[in-house]
């Protein structure tokens, strides 16, 4: 005997057509009744859900921790001031393991399971490249805080935007004139051999050549490498400047081995702080960095002439004067990047208010509202400084800092202008369909 078939027969016998009709009628009446509208407040106070694709684990974990803290501080601030269109923000966090394949799954999970309004917060470029097609397919806005050139290249899709942090191409163009004029013209590039490093490789050489300089050698290093001395002989002896940008847990080894190899007699150093984000500059072995220069998106150490809005920002996140957590002086922040989370969230708020965002049906309007942005003034919403947004390539441009290590602290010695970094757009997202 088939118990399931048996059961359905019982149901079939027990419920008549009339009963069903009655039931439907009663249900409809109940729904139409004035007191029973389940989402009566849907338009006003249902939270806006933002899926935060976070590098909780994997090589991006220190960044993930600070992106998380910055996000929490910004959301608290926005919610205390009344949220977006009167609705609070709710952050839904998923760990992508700093892994491209997992990143794409996470985007899908956000849309299908968590029903978020948009996805936000990715840093590592390979995760962005891995996740962007999924965001495009699912037609969900994808606000990255990555600094990679992928979004600005015009090769992603219309749903990907990077409105909170300047991309690598603009960064290297900003710093190249300063390097050529102050450190030297013959430059050797040391960079990680994947997307993020390739941005540096591809855009620094033309930028330094435009200044009369020259890249004398390129030293790509596999991203999984943990030992670096073996690569250092590839640096030619007549190099004036070593331009280094490394990421991942082995960065400290890299900088230490550079010091052991060259001692005090080596070429000058210009690094991207990515090499030492979340790493204490007073760590043993880093003494030889004294006097060398770094790019910083935003200063890690409190500067003497810091404006009030920057103080406010640092206080909201809980940064001490050394750029570490106020709760643990050894917990060093990723200050040069994480401001992008703060600024991106404020841009999401402004865009949603501009298009009167109600729900997922307004996702296209949201992207269009962001595309329509142009100038952003420095202030509490943009503590890193003023910015210009180019809606055609979905990319923002800002001022960059060049800092020197003095007594184990980074001191800003030069601030580039927005124009230093601007370049001709290679694509136009606004002409793409949704």
């Amino acid at each position, binding site marked *: 005997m088939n118990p399931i078939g048996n059961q359905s027969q019982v149901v079939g016998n027990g419920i008549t057509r009339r009963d069903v009709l009655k039931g439907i009628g009663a249900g409809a009446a109940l729904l139409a009744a004035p007191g029973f509208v389940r989402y009566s407040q849907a338009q006003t106070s249902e939270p806006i859900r933002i899926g935060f694709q976070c590098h909780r*684990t994997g*090589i991006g*974990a220190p960044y993930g921790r600070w992106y998380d803290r910055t996000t929490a501080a910004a959301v608290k601030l926005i919610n205390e001031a009344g949220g977006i269109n009167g609705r609070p923000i709710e952050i839904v966090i998923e760990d992508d393991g700093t892994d491209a394949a997992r990143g794409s799954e996470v985007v899908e999970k956000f849309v299908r399971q968590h029903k978020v309004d948009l996805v936000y917060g990715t840093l590592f470029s390979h995760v962005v490249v891995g996740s962007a097609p999924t965001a495009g397919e699912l037609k969900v806005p994808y606000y990255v805080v990555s600094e990679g050139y992928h979004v600005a290249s015009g090769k992603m899709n219309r749903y990907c935007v990077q409105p909170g942090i300047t991309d690598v191409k603009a960064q290297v163009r900003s710093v190249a004139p300063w390097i050529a004029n102050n450190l030297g013209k013959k430059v050797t590039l040391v960079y990680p051999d994947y997307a993020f490093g390739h941005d540096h490789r591809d855009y620094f050489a033309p930028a330094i050549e435009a200044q009369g300089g020259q890249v004398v050698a390129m030293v790509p290093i596999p991203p999984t*490498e*943990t*030992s670096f001395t073996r690569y250092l*002989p590839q640096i030619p002896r007549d190099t004036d400047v070593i331009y280094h940008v490394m990421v991942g*847990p*082995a960065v400290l080894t890299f900088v230490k081995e550079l010091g*052991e190899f060259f001692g005090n007699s080596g070429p000058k150093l210009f690094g991207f702080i990515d090499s030492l984000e979340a790493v204490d500059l007073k760590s043993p072995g880093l003494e030889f960095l004294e006097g060398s220069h770094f790019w910083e998106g935003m200063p890690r150490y409190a500067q003497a002439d810091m404006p009030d809005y920057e103080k406010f920002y640092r206080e909201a996140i809980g940064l001490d004067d050394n750029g570490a957590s106020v709760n643990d002086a050894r917990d060093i922040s990723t200050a040069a990047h994480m401001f992008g989370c703060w600024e991106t969230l404020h841009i999401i708020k402004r865009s949603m208010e501009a298009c009167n965002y109600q729900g997922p049906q307004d996702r296209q309007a949201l992207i269009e509202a962001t595309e329509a942005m142009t100038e952003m003034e420095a202030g509490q919403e943009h503590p890193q400084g003023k910015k210009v947004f180019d809606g055609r390539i979905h990319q923002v441009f800002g001022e960059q800092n060049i800092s020197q290590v003095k007594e184990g602290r980074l001191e800003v010695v030069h601030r580039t202008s927005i124009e230093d970094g601007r370049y001709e757009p290679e694509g136009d997202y606004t002409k793409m369909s949704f």
Partner: protein
Amino acid sequence: MGFGPYFLLATLEGLVTAAVLALTALGLSLVFGVMRVVNVAHGEFYMLGAVLAWWFASLVSGNPALGFLLAVVLSPLVVAAVAFIADRLVLKRLNYEAEGTIVATIGLLYIIQQLALTFYGAEARPVQAPFDWRIQLPWFGYSAYKLFVIFASIAILIGTWFLLRRTNIGLIMRATQIDRDMAQAFAIPVGKVYAGVFALGAGMAALAAVLIVPIKQAHYLMGQDPLLLSFIVVIIGGLGSLRGTVVAALLIGLSDGIISMFFSPTLAKMLATLLVALVLVFRPQGLFSPGGVAAR
């Protein structure tokens, strides 16, 4: 830089890799040789050694040599204790059955790794080297500590050889390795030998990690590479053979150093993998495996 100094640097780098690899792989080889257990969690014992080294070193302020000394003594002991407990709680209950222990040690791998992530965090943290000398050669500078690692590893390997070949403990271990049942018949407490060997193997991985941690930082994912390389070394050298492990570690370490400096690191890894394949096809017992064990 001319060919000579370039080659010297490549050799030095290769020797450091080989020194640490020999210790790590020897631990893995001992565990497999005596217990017939493929310890997939071996790399995590290595990682645990490094993480504990950071912790012990950070307890002591003042001269960095004191912190390092404390780490060198205590970190392998603690890791050995963890391995001992793991053997009693898990492996013993599986009767050291081949498939079961592989799955169990995979579980152990994740447990240790995630505990390290939870309690230690995701950062790479440095341990200060006991001394900070830099040897300036005419062509390049080199860390004196790296040379120390090479010599320390040689000393430890000689010590292990002495333990295995010249002491009663070694005799008992070898007896258990060659024939477990016969050893038991001669009143050797095989269970205790197993637990001891598992602890010793983990302790050696931890010791290797303490040596390397002033060069590379402690990080919760650092156990993956040494595990893979140790397997390569153990397969090439022959399971359970001390001499084979050392020779294979030298081979892999030096070729990694030299090939990756003159050509590319990827090529070095490819050649190592190819070597493993060739050994498995033409000499599956490994280059130096003692015949008696391989025949079984």
